[in-house]
């Protein structure tokens, strides 16, 4: 049978604040275990949390970018559960009074505009990390577990959708587009490998037109791809059960990426009643409308809007516009480049081609690129004027990319300027023709291929610097009079 699928996503985004949510400890990733801790994030007796205003600002900005209504009154709540990575055995989170509610994210799905409604955006503290002894070399530590509290207390923003997503592909696209927002706002790097973006899903099936079925929660998916796979596998599992007339149990299931299927979490042990109640150690947040307005005014142009504008203003294909607006930095680079070389499609081709290829190869970010957009523009100007060939331009750009030197400098230093001087080219052509009588006679016999061969030889001799069009023209002239 065909079922209607309802998917809801819960995305946790680690915020890029310098210090933790409730203490002054650093949030730097990768420090040695427990080096970034203090009595507050270790939950020692008698200490108290103090809210990090920047984290509130980042969360509000993201929520506003997601078209949410920011709350004027918001409160933290304690979520109580026991786990060794949670030093207080409660997490300071938000429950009934989140920072923002009721927003949406729009994006394109198979050529159509989709709108996914967001239920809430709230702020909470992260837990620590358990390291189990099996992973260590030291035999004495094999049956021990260790806790690294460096991550404890790092601000996490949680973005929760209503269960309105109707396919794994839509979930995937939602995530791809959602991820751009915190990155545009520079409030998170949304790096799944470093755990700065995590996503859980809930999914239920129901026959068309009927009310939503029992949902299962999915955890332990470590990439957007795994989320799509996990949801697909879960749809299969649930529809199989429903087809046989069986019931779906409400449970939490874990994705096993090796076996490519979900399996139930040992539920009894962790059946939680979180016993939420308002956090008495923090005063409720009263957020002034003025601040909200200020944050709204400060929002940059967001990816979806910018993409539409690129299509409209620069007549770019939607695909190009999508790639270029993927990150704010790339889109800024593109527009900056246009200032010195106002040919959008050509710039787009270069950025999407050589630029992104080298970025990936060198494994760096747009911000780390040594070539300024103006320099790329200048290079494209040389190319257009015919000072250099397309092939050479690529060689030069790679050099620019690696060394940060200017196009002009490289061209001059390495003598890479195209040979457009007819006199010197004629000289080379004469040499080539003398050395390859076979090709000349082939050409005479009407073999067109021979011309290409001869052009190639001239290019070889000039180390690629000759203008190929000119070589072609001069060769034909010479051959015709032979």
């Amino acid at each position: 049978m065909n079922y209607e699928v309802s998917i809801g996503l819960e995305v946790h985004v680690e915020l890029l604040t310098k210090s933790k949510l409730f203490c002054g400890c650093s949030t730097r990733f990768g420090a040695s275990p427990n080096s970034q801790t203090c009595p507050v994030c270790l939950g020692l007796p008698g200490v108290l949390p103090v809210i990090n205003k920047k984290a509130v600002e980042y969360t509000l900005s993201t929520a506003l970018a997601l078209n949410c209504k920011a709350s004027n009154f918001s409160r933290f709540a304690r979520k109580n559960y026991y786990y060794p990575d949670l030093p207080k055995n409660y997490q300071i989170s938000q429950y009934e009074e989140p920072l923002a509610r009721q927003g949406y994210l729009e994006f394109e799905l198979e050529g159509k505009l989709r709108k996914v409604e967001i239920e809430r955006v709230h702020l909470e503290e992260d837990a620590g990390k358990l390291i189990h002894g099996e992973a260590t070399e030291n035999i004495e530590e094999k049956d021990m577990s260790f806790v690294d509290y460096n991550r404890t207390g790092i601000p996490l923003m949680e973005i929760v959708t209503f269960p309105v997503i109707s396919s794994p592909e839509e979930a995937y696209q939602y995530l791809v587009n959602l991820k751009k927002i915190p990155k545009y706002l520079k409030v998170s790097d949304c790096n799944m490998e470093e755990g700065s973006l995590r996503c859980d899903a809930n999914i239920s099936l129901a026959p068309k037109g009927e009310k939503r079925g029992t949902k299962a929660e999915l955890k332990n998916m470590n990439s957007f791809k795994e989320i799509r796979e996990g949801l697909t596998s879960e749809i299969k599992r649930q529809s199989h059960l429903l087809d046989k007339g069986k019931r779906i149990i409400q449970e939490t299931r874990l994705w096993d990426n090796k076996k490519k299927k979900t399996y139930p979490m040992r539920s009894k042990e962790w059946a939680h009643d979180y016993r939420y109640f308002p956090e008495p150690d923090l005063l409720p947040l009263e957020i002034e409308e003025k601040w909200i307005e200020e944050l709204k005014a400060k929002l940059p142009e967001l990816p979806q809007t910018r993409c539409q504008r690129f299509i409209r203003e620069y007549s770019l294909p939607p695909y190009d516009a999508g790639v270029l607006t993927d990150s704010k930095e790339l889109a800024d680079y593109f527009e900056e480049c246009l200032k010195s070389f106002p040919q959008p499609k050509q710039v787009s081709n270069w950025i999407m081609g050589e630029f992104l290829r080298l970025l990936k190869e060198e494994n760096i970010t747009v911000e780390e690129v040594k070539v300024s957009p103006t320099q790329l523009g200048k290079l494209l100007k040389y190319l257009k004027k015919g000072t250099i060939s397309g092939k050479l331009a690529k060689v030069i750009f790679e050099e620019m990319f690696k060394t940060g030197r200017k196009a002009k400098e490289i061209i001059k230093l390495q003598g890479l300027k195209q040979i457009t001087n007819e006199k010197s080219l004629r000289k080379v052509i004469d040499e080539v023709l003398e050395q390859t009588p076979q090709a000349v006679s082939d050409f005479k016999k009407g073999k067109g291929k021979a011309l290409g061969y001869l052009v190639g030889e001239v290019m070889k001799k000039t180390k690629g610097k000759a203008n190929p069009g000119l070589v072609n023209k001069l060769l034909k002239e010479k051959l015709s009079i032979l």
Partner: protein
Amino acid sequence: MKLHELSAHRLHKLIKNREVSVEEIVISLFQRIEKVEEKVKAFLFLYKKEALEEARKWDKRISQGEDIGPLSGIPIAIKDNICLDKKETTCASRILKEFYPPYAATAIERLKKAGVIFIGKTNMDEFAMGSSTENSAFQITRNPWNLETIPGGSSGGSAVAVASGEVPLALGSDTGGSIRQPAALCGVVGLKPTYGRVSRYGLVAFASSLDQIGPVTKTVRDSANLLQVISGKDEFDSTSLDYSVPDYSESLISELKGIRIGLPKEYFIPGIEEEVKKKILTATKVLQDLGARVEEVSLPHTEYAVATYYLVATAEASSNLARYDGVGYGYRTKEKTNLIDMYKKSRQQGFGDEVKRRIMLGTYVLSKGYYENYYGKAQRVRTLIKEDLDKVFQDFDAVITPTSPTVAFKVGEKIDDPLKMYLSDIFTISANLAGIPGISILCGFNKDNLPIGLQILGKAFDEETVLRIAYAYEQNTEWHKRRAEI
């Protein structure tokens, strides 16, 4: 009078006039401690060597002509749920035995700046849960007025240390009466400041929305001076409020002209001892003679205070005490087990009965399906209790009540009857629920020579009026001059 019998203010004058050295004071107090501590058992830890060193440092500074403040070189005892850096802080619980905090409470930092000398940490009911100090995991503290009786609690150790002349000053903490009730039962002055007046940073939490650190002293003046030092906004405690701290010594006026005092009829219930009632009414007359207008008022929701308190306080406690799990610090079971068993056994073996009782109650109160009926409802009743007081405070400057319905009871008398024990706090709890300040002062003795306490409650952040009434009463009566003979 001997040095150990003097108030901090008197000692300050002697030090200032160079009639006595700080070292002499500290030596004299430790002599007193050696004499009586075995009987009263007020202290869990004593810092004799360091105290003497500090004293000599002060004497040197004084001899060099350094200006001294009212608390410079004055010895103080600290309740063992307030963190003193690098000093064992146990909350009188096995679960925190050998826990040495690397930080000091903000109140302690402020005391250090004021130049006090720390004498030791005092006994208490485990995690401040109790009204007799019998819930300590380590020892039973005795009331110096009668060693057969309890000193009240939970700050029993601090009250006894002051009442027995072991120290002139102590800090306690008050969640439902834990400063005022033992102060009443031991015949000393105990002040619970407005919620938010004194930073809670470094006070091991029992019930976060109710806890407050406060002074236990021999006189009202000492109480004012100690409050002066520990009060004020602290950036490490978001619930400490940014109200300017007045000069409390200016409130110490010994008449009460124009002061309006309410006497709530709901506080004179059956179950209150006749002698307590009589003494409160006598005290009322004294206040009237000093110029105060005293009228009967009504606080209609008083009867729900104890029930409300035991829902709110236990709910918060169940969460606050969740961190004692044997993972990072504190007691961990010696038995080799899996994670869940480690949690269970560490807590089973580490906590005492009363603490377990309250954790269970609090966990239940917050559970799915019960939250609204218990915690939710309690919060609403809490608002009603606060509104009762707000209403009275529209027409009155203060409210007076007995601090405790009874005088000190026998050791062991109520330990097996928690409900009876909980009623010890029936008159003190409302102040915590409403967040207002309250003081308990000595207003007489019963026929067995056991102290009776008068409680004065004031408006939020109006410790001044509370201190003024207490001071006027004290200055015009002789009770506070009596000392327990041990």
